[in-house]
């Protein structure tokens, strides 16, 4: 019978079970990557006089370095990500701290707070567009009437960026709250009590006890948020339609590579590849940061 079981555990069966997943991911995940890798070296414009691909070496990449719009989009994306994520982590932590207390109706408040997380990004964009639209949106109305402040995201890039950040905070703070809450509930009571007995004040307890325990969860959360923030397209597109101040890298790539707008496929591929590369480098740095710190903790 043992022989029968070991026969059942034949690796070939394992590969067979894994193969449909691998095939789909290779076709739809890995092949597009190879595609941009190769096409990025070619001049390929479908509407050009001569159809077909012409080898162009690093020409597309040379063009990319001097493409002000691309560089601007990278700068904007980074500013957006930093502002949004810092606010989300601070608010999320405070909210999670508030949720560790007991008070009536806690679970209902928590469910409502979680609600934005599952809303389609495009609908989040629609919600915020309706809030800020000139003419009937309440936000410009209130700011103008009460504070004499001209609010128009179509005109002022900084306002558009700030609105995108606030929208992102509204959408994603609940995620940070929930992960922080999970992290906080996993902290054992003894070290905290011990620190209090030893005369540590609240700030010291937070800095020397809570934060080190929270670090893995915190880093995972920030990691996932960065990945998502730099690929943001839908909601910001719906909010501002690619207006000034919101042309993030994702939106820029979309507009350049989108089949209707431009047929410059070679150049589009090179932008895609560079963005992928930047994402991977960022991923890798974060991964090093996370695993490096973990190692430090062990020693």
């Amino acid at each position: 019978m043992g022989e029968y079981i070991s026969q059942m555990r034949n690796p070939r069966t394992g590969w067979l079970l894994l193969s449909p997943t691998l095939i789909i991911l290779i076709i739809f995940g890995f092949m597009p990557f190879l595609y941009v890798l190769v096409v990025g070296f070619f001049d390929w414009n479908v509407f050009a006089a001569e159809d077909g691909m012409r080898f162009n070496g690093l020409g597309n990449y040379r063009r990319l370095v001097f493409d002000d719009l691309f560089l601007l989009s990278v700068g904007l994306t980074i500013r957006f990500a930093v502002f949004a994520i810092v606010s989300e982590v601070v608010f999320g932590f405070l909210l999670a701290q508030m949720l560790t207390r007991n008070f009536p109706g806690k679970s209902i408040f928590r469910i409502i707070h979680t609600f934005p997380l599952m809303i389609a990004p495009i609908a989040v964009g629609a919600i915020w567009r309706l809030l800020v639209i000139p003419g009937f949106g309440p936000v410009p109305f209130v700011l103008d009437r009460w504070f004499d402040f001209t609010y128009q995201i179509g005109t002022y890039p900084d306002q558009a960026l700030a609105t995108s950040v606030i929208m992102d905070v509204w959408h994603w703070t609940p995620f940070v709250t929930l992960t922080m809450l999970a992290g906080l509930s996993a902290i054992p009571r003894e070290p905290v009590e011990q620190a209090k007995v030893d005369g540590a004040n609240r700030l010291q307890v937070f800095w020397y006890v809570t934060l080190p325990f929270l670090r893995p969860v915190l880093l995972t959360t920030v990691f996932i948020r960065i990945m998502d923030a730099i690929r943001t397209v839908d909601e910001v597109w719906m909010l501002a339609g690619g207006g000034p101040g919101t042309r993030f890298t994702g939106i820029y790539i979309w507009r350049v590579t989108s089949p209707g707008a431009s047929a410059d496929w070679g150049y589009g591929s090179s932008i895609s590849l560079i963005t992928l590369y930047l994402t991977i480098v960022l991923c890798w740095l974060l991964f090093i940061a996370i695993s490096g710190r973990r190692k430090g903790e062990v020693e």
Partner: protein
Amino acid sequence: MSGARRRALRTVSSLGFWVFMTLLTLIPIWWMFVVSMRSRVELFSRPNLAISRLFLENYSNVLTDSTFQRYMTNSVVVSSCNAALVMALALLATYALSRYKLVGRDNIFFWLITNRMAPPAAFLLPLFIMFTRSFRIGNWTLFDTQLGLILLYCVFNLPFAIWLLKGVVDGIPIELDDAAMIDGAGLGGVLRHVVIPLAAPGLAVTGILSWVFAWNEYLFAANLTSVEARTITTGLAEFVTVTGTNWGELAAMSMITLIPSAIIVIVAQRYIVMGLTFGAVKE
């Protein structure tokens, strides 16, 4: 005495704070609801947050529109088929990764997550070319088909599903598999009688979350469909046109799009965090 008063004060302040937070969360959504209940003329009067009368024309216009009905059907079909496919494939894959000694198992596992992290905008162009040119049988292409979206959505749903289910399947003692095999069960029998019943809650969560992620997806749907397979999220974006937008109907359609999200938050609230962090953070 003063201890009880302090406790009461704390409760009241917590309650006050959370009522405020709830308002911050709900007012934007409430405003959209208000817009969806107003006619074009009413909209451009002075903004206020109250609903004065029941005006359902926006909803009835949207719901009786045949284009919208097609978008809605497409979204339901694509999300449901994708969720079913993802559940099936992820179960097989996690079982393989959990029970078999496969060469490079950890690397495969790491590669899976990178699929989820890639910026979708970077893949739009190659996918468009693949969909319109590479996958072609006679006149038929993968472009603008439900099948195309169902398969494509696996790219971001499968990695997350496998990460979520891995923990579940790892938690099922291998002795149970062995016992079933000794009783003469084949692989199908083990999966059907041991793994699936024990992994059922995890599978359900995987299915529900995959369904929402597919339902919410916009960028791929907008670029890889044109008429027949458009989904509800692309429909939302189509409302905003150069010539003028019917904001009331846009709001009504967005409200309809929100319904599944609301249900899922209530039903699967405990598992959302696990789903979004690939199981790295558990509650």
